[in-house]
């Protein structure tokens, strides 16, 4: 498949180069289309969100009310903070205009007059790159009032975060834009009814939005034929950990994980065996290396393997990896990033981390394995947002699939007793 999201064209981040390769032609086309027809095309394409939840993008757009006297908003989520994920950064750097063009088309489709691109605070270098591209688009008349002489008005504002994983959760992101602490909101109401400042709001991931011009160019039906039929399109897969060539690779959905590791990422250093793979960012359930055969990178394929596609940020671990340390580090992250609103998440993540430290230090009790599982099970589903689930899934799957690793770190109760004295 020819790369569609990240074509290898030098200087594509510059607007003249982007235009020379057909850039902003789809915006011109979209400006002549009725918003509903654009939504229909995106529905036909079967584009599903690339931020982790795989929600159908066209359907999400159709939730936006047609008749309202309130302003409508589009948020583009570039918070990209899930460990193992580094794909949106590539779009910011190599093809920012594709995302900007997609955002203007999406804003037109849902009737939003303002786009907020939320980017994690650490990415200041990339924020500057995107801001340059946005300035270029304004100068060319692709952004602003009466775009290219039409009646469509779209403004574009980059909102810089300041270090909070939770702000990638859509309602937390909105609170952050409103100048609040980044606490997730209870849903429903959903953003399309009650989003930014109580107004109708659509939130899509950067990569999702970057797919929009591609859909208009190919047509929804042709797009739907790329990759896996139930989860089609080009996909940016980030591969990290124990591989020879870590990086972001574009491929159709549905590629075998083994092929991604061997062919795209150059295999495992020293030809070591693979012990485990996290397929889609640190919150997705871990897959055993000996269960990788036949598993594909798409929503259905990973569901069948007892995991999920998440952000398609794959972390590969070779046979010498200490998985207890891995799960302890992941859990430390969720404990650190819990916003503190819901008790099961705030307290539970800390308890899990403490217990995992005991395993790390080989000081755990045999009963700690089930205690850990019990805590994870009591976090899952009992919190306002999905961070609680994100913290529970890696722990649950690690125990389910690598219980022996935990058992090996249990300190025998007998060895903890003081040595018997002569008097006894």
């Amino acid at each position, binding site marked *: 498949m020819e790369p569609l999201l990240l074509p290898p064209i030098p200087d594509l981040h510059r607007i003249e180069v982007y235009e020379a390769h057909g850039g902003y032609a789809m915006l011109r086309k979209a400006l002549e289309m009725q918003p509903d027809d654009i939504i229909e095309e995106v529905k036909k394409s079967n584009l599903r969100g690339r931020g982790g939840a795989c929600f159908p993008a066209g359907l999400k757009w159709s939730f936006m009310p047609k008749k309202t006297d309130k302003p409508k908003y589009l948020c583009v989520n570039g918070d990209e903070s899930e*460990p*193992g994920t*580094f794909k949106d950064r590539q779009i910011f750097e190599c093809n920012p205009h594709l995302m900007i063009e997609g955002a203007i088309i999406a804003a037109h489709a849902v009737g939003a007059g*303002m786009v907020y691109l939320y980017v994690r605070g650490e990415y200041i270098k990339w924020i500057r790159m995107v801001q340059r591209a946005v300035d270029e688009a304004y100068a060319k008349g692709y952004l602003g009032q009466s775009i290219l002489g039409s009646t469509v008005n779209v403004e574009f*504002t980059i*909102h810089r975060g*300041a270090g909070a*994983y939770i702000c990638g959760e859509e309602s937390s992101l909105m609170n952050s834009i409103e*100048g609040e602490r980044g606490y997730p909101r209870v849903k429903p109401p959903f953003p399309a009814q009650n989003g930014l400042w109580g107004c109708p709001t659509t939130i899509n991931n950067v990569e999702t939005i970057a797919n929009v011009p591609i859909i208009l160019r190919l047509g929804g039906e042709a797009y739907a034929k790329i990759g896996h039929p139930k989860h089609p399109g080009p996909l940016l897969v980030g591969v990290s*950990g124990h591989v020879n060539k870590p990086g972001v690779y574009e491929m159709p959905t549905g590629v075998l994980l083994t092929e991604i590791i061997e062919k795209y990422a150059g295999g495992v250093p020293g030809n070591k065996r693979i012990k485990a793979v996290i397929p889609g960012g640190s919150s997705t359930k871990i897959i055993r290396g000996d269960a990788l055969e036949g598993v594909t990178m798409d929503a259905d394929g990973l569901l069948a393997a007892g995991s999920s596609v998440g952000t398609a940020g794959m972390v590969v671990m070779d046979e010498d990896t200490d998985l207890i340390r891995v799960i302890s580090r992941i859990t430390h992250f969720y404990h650190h990033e819990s916003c503190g609103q819901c008790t099961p998440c705030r307290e539970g993540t800390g308890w899990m981390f403490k217990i995992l430290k005991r395993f790390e230090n080989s000081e755990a009790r045999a009963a700690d394995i089930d205690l850990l599982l019990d805590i994870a099970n009591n976090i899952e589903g009992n919190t306002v947002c999905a961070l609680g689930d994100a913290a529970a899934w890696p722990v649950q799957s690690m125990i389910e699939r690598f219980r022996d690793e935990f058992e090996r770190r249990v300190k025998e109760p007998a060895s903890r007793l003081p040595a018997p004295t002569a008097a006894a």
Partner: protein
Amino acid sequence: MLSEAHLQRIEELKQRYQKPQSLILEVLWMLQEEHGWISEEGMKYAAGLLGMPEHHVFGVVTFYTMFNKKPVGRHKIEVCTNISCMLRNSDRILEHLERRLNIRPGETTPDNRFTLVEAECLGSCGTAPAMQVGDEYYENLDEAKIDMILSELT
């Protein structure tokens, strides 16, 4: 507490939001850029500038990890130790920095040149191990590369 240029930028940005309060992160970023950290005085100033209660500003400052709640060294070194970096030896990177700077994470060198911090995932998993110093990312790190970077950060 903010330069004229920054104040003017804030006025421009106000047009882009329903309420001035949305600019709190931006104002805090500007304060940090000009003063190196967010003092109590800075928080009061931000509250006045945007018409927000002071306690609300305090709540925001303490929620986001990137705001320095106390003074830091000239260069704040943030080393990622999350899984992708950990699998590619971020332990060694952190240890090397601790040895070279003779401080532990959370501490600042006596000459006020460096502050060392352990960071959560920086989104550099494909170029791990990585660290951030100020606005700059340093990637595919090893000991020699760190020595070179340290010598350049005066």
